[in-house]
């Protein structure tokens, strides 16, 4: 039997690969966005610290801006962005 594909529709799903399900700051799922955003995805990305803890970028930046010392909310180590 010979089949000719006349048309096809691709469907894909995506998710962030993080070591946790929820952001430790806003408690929203990583696959959803931070509470200040409307849509998940590249506009509300995740970011990792050198300590390996992960947050929505908007959440961790908001926290670091409110603090005199830049520490990870989870482990209190000095916060450094991990550019992996």
């Amino acid at each position, binding site marked *: 039997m010979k089949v000719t594909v006349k048309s096809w529709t691709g469907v894909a799903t995506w998710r962030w690969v993080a070591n946790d399900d929820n952001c*430790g700051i*806003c*408690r929203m799922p990583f696959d959803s966005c931070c*509470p*200040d955003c409307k849509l998940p995805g590249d506009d509300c990305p995740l970011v990792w610290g050198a300590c390996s803890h992960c947050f929505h970028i908007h*959440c961790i930046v908001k926290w670091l801006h*409110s603090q005199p010392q830049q520490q990870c*909310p989870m482990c*209190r180590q000095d916060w450094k962005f991990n550019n992996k």
Partner: protein
Amino acid sequence: MAAMSPSERRLQKELMSLMKEPPPGVTVDGDQASQNLTLWTVHMEGVPGTLYEGEKFVLQFKFTNKYPFDSPEVTFIGNNIPIHPHVYSNGHICLSILTDDWSPALSVQSVCLSIVSMLSSCKEKKRPPDNSFYVKTCNKNPKKTKWWYHDDSV
């Protein structure tokens, strides 16, 4: 229902989980909290086998719209304020995570656990040495107090 602010969304999540799985001896007044998410009343029982066994305490949590970036204001209220070296007779608590050591990764549940553990490790029931002076001179809001955290033993 009106759209919830980021702080209300987080508080709503915390309220649900605290009502579903509260730590032992801790109960939140869910009706009151869900009517006004910025003011919670939490009931706490003294842990069996500690100096506070059989006692009942009431904690009040006040949240600003900056929560969880801003720590909650937590005080004991009601007519049974625990006699403890870090608890003033007006209900103010000297506990570093409530001010300098606050982190947005903490929660109402973790604050309750810290307070339960602070009470449970107490060896002798007594008020802080500067209680009467502090209570006369302090601001109503304990977060306005410049706390000195000098005793890590209880």
